[in-house]
């Protein structure tokens, strides 16, 4: 009932291919944006910003990047964190070596550098596919991190390998409070998500999906495979690079290789699986799920511990987290392989009728 589309006629192709063609969706997104941009900054605590909202947004961006590569273009990648690292370190070097470099431009530069590296490591995809490509991306993950650790010039010969990120100052205004950082990250992520959605519904998105579904047929209708695949790697790595830069500048405060480990690559992959492969919404849903899960878990375990006096050890909690993660991945793959995004779609379908039975 709530979600009925009856009476909403689209009189032009523009209206039909709009991102939110249904009025209820438009209202919904307006509410969410209002909440995100206005209500949250005024009401949330610094802890909420720094520990939950900011990493959620940044990793959504990275998940978006991985989704472009794996979800839309069908090229499996286990090296997401490495491309994020490239973005972070490149931005750092831009800020360090270019006088009066605007930080937003440094982020873009980081993204471009990551895109370039992404194209390099994407070249094998022209010959290799499936699992083999996944293993090749592991090569990227290990090799890139090794380079970032060993090559002194990149870390400005820092002895500890951990560099403090420069302060974020845009047009003279310092973004130092958690709320300010949150707004900055939110704006960047919102714009890039919009761009991703536009690409997905345009010709480039269709070309990617064609390559994913049947690349031989895609070739026959005139799509250039090399161009499509390398473009996917480039755009995806750009997104991951910007996410990596934000991860360093707006979340960690430091630029270090260890933060971009294989573990992070897997976390982002899980976000894409749980959220829904090939879906912009799915990237956000998956990121929210994976970011919130450890928090929820430790809160509830601590609560049980306190109320039932169980004396549960710290290590047990982290092991439990591993088990729950693993179990949930399996659960999702069995029950709904298309992830939370599909569950959301099904819910909307049900809402067309609810509360009526049929």
């Amino acid at each position, binding site marked *: 009932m709530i979600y009925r589309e009856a009476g909403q006629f689209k009189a032009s192709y523009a209206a039909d291919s709009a991102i939110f063609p249904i009025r209820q969706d438009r209202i919904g997104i307006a509410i969410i944006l209002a909440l995100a941009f206005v209500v949250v900054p005024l009401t949330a605590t610094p802890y909420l910003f720094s520990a939950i909202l900011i990493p959620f947004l940044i990793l959504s961006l990275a998940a978006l990047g991985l989704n472009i590569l794996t979800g839309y273009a069908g090229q*499996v990648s286990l090296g997401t964190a490495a491309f994020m690292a490239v973005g972070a370190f490149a931005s750092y070097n831009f800020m360090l070596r270019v006088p009066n470099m605007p930080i937003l431009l440094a982020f873009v530069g980081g993204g471009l550098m990551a895109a370039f590296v992404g194209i390099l490591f994407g070249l*094998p995809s022209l*010959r*290799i596919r*499936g*699992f*083999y490509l996944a*293993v*090749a991306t*592991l*090569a990227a993950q*290990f*090799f890139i991190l*090794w380079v970032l*650790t*060993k090559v002194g010039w990149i870390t400005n010969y820092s002895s500890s390998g951990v560099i403090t990120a420069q302060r974020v100052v845009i047009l003279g205004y310092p973004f130092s409070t958690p709320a300010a950082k949150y707004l900055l990250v939110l704006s960047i992520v919102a714009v890039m998500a919009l761009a991703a959605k536009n690409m997905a519904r345009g010709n480039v998105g269709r070309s990617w999906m064609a390559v994913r579904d049947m690349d*031989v*047929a895609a070739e026959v209708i005139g799509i250039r495979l090399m161009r499509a695949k390398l473009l996917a790697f480039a755009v995806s790595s750009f997104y991951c690079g910007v996410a990596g830069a934000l991860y360093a500048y707006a979340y960690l405060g430091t630029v270090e290789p260890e933060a971009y480990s*294989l573990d992070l690559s*897997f976390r982002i*992959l899980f976000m894409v*699986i749980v959220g829904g492969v090939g879906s912009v919404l799915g990237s956000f849903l998956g990121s929210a799920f994976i970011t919130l899960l450890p928090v929820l878990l430790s809160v509830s375990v601590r609560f049980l511990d306190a109320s039932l006096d169980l004396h549960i050890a710290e*290590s*047990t909690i982290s*092991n*439990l*987290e*591993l*088990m729950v*993660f*693993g*179990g*949930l*991945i*399996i659960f999702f*793959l*069995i029950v709904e*392989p298309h992830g939370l995004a599909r569950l959301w779609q099904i819910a909307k379908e049900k809402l067309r009728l609810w509360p009526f039975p049929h």
Partner: protein
Amino acid sequence: MSFFFEVLIGGLLSGIMYSLVALGFVLIYKASGVFNYAQGALVFFAALTFVGLLELKLPFWLALPATLAVMIVLAVVIERVILRPLVNQPQITLFMATIGLSFFIEGLAQMMWGANVRGLDLGLQDEPIQWISDTTGMNISKFDLAAAGVAAVLVAVLAIFFNRTRIGRALRAVADDHQAALAVGIPLRQIWTIVWGVAGAVALVAGLLWGARNGVQYALTFVALKALPVLILGGFESVPGAIVGGLIIGASEKLAEVYIGPYVGGGIEGWFPYVLALVFLLVRPEGLFGEKIIRRI
């Protein structure tokens, strides 16, 4: 010159250790078409369970079959909970399920037995064999040689199993096409339970050897990651390929570290096998022993 051979042989022998882990992968892939990312976790779990049982004062010759039994139970559970609901799903879905499985098993193992590093004594010392070092000046470890022997026996047994027995043939049929195998009456569920059980046993052997060498610790799970380049070189479906691939990876890794490492600051063992595999893939996408994939349109 003898130094070169020492490094080479050391590398070859450590390569055998990788092959042992890769064998588990090959078994499961050959028989069910599933790429089991959780093989490393199984190695870790097996080793940890064995050591845990020893700490509970179980004698060695009881702990071994007990651990084997645990691995078989695990195989049954995995078949029931993961493989059955996901039958006929695309390969990538099953692969991601095994990633989830690996996380689960790692958490479970550490929760059951704790996360302390433990040593494992199999009665073999990691010492150079006296008469070899006396005659040729090379240090070759007793332990490594014994491990190579074990691996050789294991490979021979598995090769006979796959190629000469009826069950082996059934396994190969299942790997090719689940539906077709079902259609000719091959009991899929039993087959899978058997295969994962055997893979569990292989994981146990690998776990014991690796654990004795490096200590039983969480880092054992990363050995599985090293097995991936081995599989790429050897092909995912070939038992001899896993051995040859392991030898190549082991040898090249050590040689690269010793001869190229000093010029670039060391630590290249971490990525060298992967880059090697990558280069190899570009030249021969299906591996040394793999079958060429022909796609018809």
